[in-house]
């Protein structure tokens, strides 16, 4: 660490700054041991585990249904997405097919979750760069989604609303006008973000060219989601390996070849629009019917079987690997492929040689949720 770097004037030394585990901008309890040369980052060592709740171990002692609320606590910012991945994995394992209406409701809620997560990502990016007001505007709009979640499931953040085979509640009557209004107002909101965040030259200079991640590196390090698409690789599980009923909707996958923080930001803003498109189509074609398939009260795995199911979460490829034991109502093993965890691997690489302030930018644009990374 203390590599002596003797210049011809003064001997200087690297020094270590511990960013976190309690730091305003690490988005949770991450510990970044940063080796600095002045303001330039020489190396970053990411130390995780401050939010580790041994979710995988807990899963082994809970029934399939009981584990649903725990999944929501993985990526606590995108409400319905982790439960969606989990319930679909269990359905695959137990050979249960959710009802048609439930599938649509799931898509609507999942896309709203994505919007809320991306809004918070954009907002906290602005906040980390010092633009407090822009963050408040994003949170203001996210609040509308939170209200909708409360209408549907009674909870605002950790929505345990999905069930194996369907959903727990039908959408209430006042949800439809609220959802439509949000979709209608979204372009106006995005205009405002463009005015306050995107158009701001200070912010542009802080994002452009910062934390460049090449396509090859992104692929090799298993980076997925908006971060991979911002590196110019066109991969979206919703389109390429459609789960649920995503193959029925028309949407575009925004990609950006920049690979820098700016591209990651822009891809997320564009995804807001695309998610809104999906919600609009789903609302238009929402069928009537049951909201939950008939399932036995105690779900039991029929055979010794393992399943890996992945979805496009707001952070990337969120996968659940479940090993079921025949006749048991609990999984033998459950593993979460957490996108935040794997995306964080590239942080030391893209920070190397950057300025200290770029560390904050890079964390914010990689958008990890430490609850998911630590599990």
């Amino acid at each position, binding site marked *: 660490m203390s590599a002596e770097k003797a210049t011809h004037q003064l001997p200087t030394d690297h020094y270590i700054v511990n960013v976190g585990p309690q730091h305003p901008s690490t988005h949770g309890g991450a510990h970044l041991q940063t080796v600095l040369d002045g303001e330039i980052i020489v190396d970053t060592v990411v130390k995780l585990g401050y939010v580790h709740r041994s979710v995988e171990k807990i899963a082994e002692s809970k029934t399939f249904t009981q584990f649903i609320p725990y999944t929501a606590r993985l990526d606590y910012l995108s409400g319905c997405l982790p439960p969606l991945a989990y319930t679909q994995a269990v359905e695959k394992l137990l050979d249960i097919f959710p009802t048609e209406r439930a599938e649509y409701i799931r898509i609507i809620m999942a896309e709203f979750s994505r919007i809320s997560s991306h809004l918070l990502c954009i907002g906290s990016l602005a906040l980390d760069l010092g633009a407090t007001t822009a963050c408040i505007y994003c949170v203001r709009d996210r609040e509308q989604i939170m209200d909708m979640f409360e209408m549907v499931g009674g909870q605002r953040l950790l929505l345990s609303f999905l069930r194996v085979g369907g959903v727990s509640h039908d959408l209430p009557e006042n949800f439809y006008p609220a959802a439509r209004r949000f979709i209608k107002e979204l372009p106006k909101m995005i205009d405002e973000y463009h005015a*306050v965040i995107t158009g701001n030259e200070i912010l542009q*200079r802080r994002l452009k060219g910062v934390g460049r991640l090449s396509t090859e590196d992104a692929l090799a390090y298993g980076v997925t989601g908006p971060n991979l698409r911002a590196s110019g690789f066109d991969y979206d599980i919703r389109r390429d390996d459609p789960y649920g009923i995503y193959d029925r909707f028309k949407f575009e996958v925004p990609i950006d070849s920049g690979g820098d923080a700016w591209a990651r930001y822009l891809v997320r803003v564009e995804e807001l629009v695309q998610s809104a498109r999906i919600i609009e189509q789903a609302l238009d074609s929402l069928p009537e019917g049951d909201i939950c398939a008939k399932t036995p009260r105690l779900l039991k795995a029929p055979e010794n079987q393992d399943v890996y199911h992945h979805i496009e979460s707001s952070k990337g490829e969120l996968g659940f690997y479940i090993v079921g034991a025949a006749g048991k109502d609990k999984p033998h093993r459950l593993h979460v492929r957490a996108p935040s965890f794997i995306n964080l691997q590239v942080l030391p690489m893209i920070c190397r040689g950057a300025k200290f302030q*770029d560390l904050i930018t890079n964390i914010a644009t990689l958008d990890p949720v430490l609850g998911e990374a630590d599990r």
Partner: protein
Amino acid sequence: MDLWFTNIANYIVQLLMSWGFPYFWADLILLLIQWMCVLAIVVLDVIILIWLERKAAGFIQMRLGPNRLGPFGIFQTIADAIKLMTKEDIIPNKVDKWIFLTAPLFMIFISVMLYLVLPIGEGLAVVDLDVGLLYFLSLSSLTTICVLMAGWGSNNKWSLMGAMRAVAQMITYEVPLILSLLGIVMITGSLRLSDIVAAQSHVWLIIMQPLALICYFIAATAELNRGPFDMPEAEQELTAGAYTEYTGMRWALFFLAEYTNLVAVSALFVCLFLGGWHGPFLPQWLWIPVKTYVVICVFFWIKWTFPRIRMDHLMSFSWKVLIPLSLLNIVLTGFGIEIFAWVRGL
């Protein structure tokens, strides 16, 4: 009405002399009284300003700001001050004790001294130095030493980083700040602040020196460590920068000094560009506060809209944009003066 304060001062001096004090002593006592007044104004100003900033930030962010204590929450700052004063004064074990303890004192001392040369009305400066502008600029740059003391004395890496940033920023922005004011000195031909204000009785310098105005405003924001230039205490990066280890009253002193500086620099801005005490209807000693508060509101507005600039961008912006611009301003002003003289001579 314009002469209230001068009359009071004269009355006090005469009263003291009638009691048998020699003129020297009477003047000295008057100076002390003025000093007390400045202190009172500073404290009052800061209390109002903190409230105002929080209120302004609230409105910008569609919140209400403080509204619990007193009408519109005016007494919030007073409650905060009481809280800070009664807090435990923590001195960490490993700090460089004397530097750590004296830094906030020096800071507030220097900040208050800035007010001595500010002309609040015609003949209403505590000491109307003939090098007032120079005095002001040199003193205001001294506050950086205090930030460095705080950062170094705290023996904390965050503090040190904040302090180093503050120093780098100060050195960089001092240059365009002073260069941009040269044009004014060239036009008015004086370094005395009251002379500069007096020269604006017909036309404010904002019209003659727009380029200098922009340069000065940006440089002053950086000097004050405010707005998009709040590097030294960038809370999202450095937690609280140079002030990380400070608690209670010592931290409050830094806060106080920061706002004191803000008022002083804004008042100087008013004196230099916005015609100082000149203005219709209101008495002259009211014009300065009114204009100062308007300028301060602009500072607030900028701070709460913009993200923080990056350190290296900040430096390059100063060296590559602001300094050339202020140099250009000097050249242009020189030509302007010559052309003006030539036109006049025709």
